[in-house]
């Protein structure tokens, strides 16, 4: 049964949300907290409206999403390619895996200073660090996917005459590793988003993260809170529009168990 949108507001889940909002609304009558520390709801609302009207919000959002997209594509493509290559060659695997494990341990964020040295402040370091982040996640998940292919599949293709390596790659490895690749893309996007805001705060001169840290420097609490709300909202939308559908497809197609979720 389809529930109309307004009816959903009456669900029990709306109660705590409403309480939080009410508490926030009531704050001016009780508090001695300065505006810049915890701006009033109305203040945040008008700030958000102002940001949207002036186009600053859309510009920042556009910058951030553009970087996210570029970095994600670069990192994911490299991750899948290296993942497949490492799977195909045992010696390459033995040689590369310790190095990969080490570089994976250097959290993507730790590359920020060097990325600034190499690319200067702006989009360069942001894209580098996030692509780096995505690369390792997609790589490990591709390996996991390839590992989960039962050996019998290879034997089956071999029996049927597919003894060329390329045939194996096309018929077994790529489709078999696909589950891993897809879950890697999903996790990778989530991590990319986490990192994006942080890197923008440190190494960019525009975008959502920069907007927020700059506001904090001039004690503009309303903008800081506005950006936090926008960041939450963008993630909810991305999750619904991009990630959930990917998960549904993988679960339906390969019967994979979904990630722990509320």
């Amino acid at each position: 049964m389809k529930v109309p949108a307004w009816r959903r507001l009456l669900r029990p889940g709306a109660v705590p949300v409403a309480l939080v909002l009410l508490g926030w609304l009531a704050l001016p009558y009780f508090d001695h907290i300065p505006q810049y520390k915890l701006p009033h709801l109305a203040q945040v609302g008008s700030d958000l409206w102002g940001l949207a009207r002036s186009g600053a919000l859309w510009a920042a959002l556009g910058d951030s999403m553009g970087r996210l997209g570029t970095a994600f594509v670069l990192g994911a493509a490299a991750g899948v390619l290296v993942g497949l290559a490492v799977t195909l060659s045992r010696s390459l695997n033995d040689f590369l895996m310790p190095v990969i494990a080490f570089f994976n341990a250097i959290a993507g964020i730790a590359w920020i200073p060097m990325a600034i040295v190499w690319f200067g402040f702006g989009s360069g370091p942001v894209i580098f660090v996030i692509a780096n982040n995505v690369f390792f996640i997609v790589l490990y998940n591709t390996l996991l996917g390839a590992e989960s292919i039962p050996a019998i599949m290879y034997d089956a293709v071999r029996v049927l005459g597919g003894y060329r390596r390329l045939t194996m790659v096309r018929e077994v490895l790529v489709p078999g590793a696909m589950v891993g690749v897809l879950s890697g893309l999903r996790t990778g996007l989530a991590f990319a988003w986490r990192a994006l805001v942080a890197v923008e705060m440190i190494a960019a001169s525009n975008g959502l993260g920069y907007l927020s840290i700059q506001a904090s420097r001039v004690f503009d609490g309303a903008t800081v809170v506005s950006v936090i709300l926008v960041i939450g909202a963008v993630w909810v939308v991305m999750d619904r529009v991009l990630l959930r559908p990917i998960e549904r497809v993988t679960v339906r197609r390969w019967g994979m168990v979904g990630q722990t979720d509320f």
Partner: protein
Amino acid sequence: MVGIGTAAPVLPGPARARPAGRVGHGVALVGKALLPFVVLVGLWQASALALGLSNYLYPRPALVLRTFGVLVQHGVLLSYTETSMWRWFVGVAAGAGLAVPVALVLTFYRPVARMMFPLINFFTAIVELAWIPLFVLWFGYGFKVIVLSIAYVTFFPVLANTMTGITQIPRTSIHAARTLGANRWQMALHVLLPGSLPGTVTGVRTGAGYGFRSLIGAEMIAAQSGLGYMIFESRANQLTQRTIAGMITIGVLWLVIDRLYLRSIEKATVQRWGMQRRAPR
């Protein structure tokens, strides 16, 4: 003829378990693991010579090694590592310590849980580092901001995994405790807490990993000490060899924490209380 036995199985997966063997085998294994790093440093040195970039843009391995010596000698590295680890530890402990009781309460009061989920989901959706500008407005730079963002990011995976852990406790254990007259308190203490431990530990390991990244990021934005601060400030002072030394320290530190401590704790917990492993990443 295509022989099943004759074609060497080149494809199937990496990381096969090798049979544990003689002492010489162990030495060979260590050598095998070190070799790639030796080659890596060789490539680093060779490329530095070939590219001829300045030490600022591309510090040489020898310089980084010497910098390590200097940083250790002056006690900077140790003291910053200590500062960072303490922040990380307090943050993870606070986040996990808060998440477990919340998970128990949400398990006991299902209607409350259903009410809380949308709110929890929304806060999960907000990246912890996005809070930092606000935390800075509240507390200024330093310890509180960093610990708070680590605790924030640890809280959610521990909560989710503990709740999953509780739902995977066999019904019979719960029924048995109830039959024997356990009250809520006893149920929590003797059945739910130990039963959910594998989930909690998995959550803590995930959260600790997020927290470690968060630590480095937060220290770059809002600290005057710690490893994150060191790698960031060194760049501003044109001392990128210190940045590289710091990055290597961060990588080794995380490998040690994860491999030696977190993984073995998880394994021990799963063996003792768990039925099976869940959600590896």
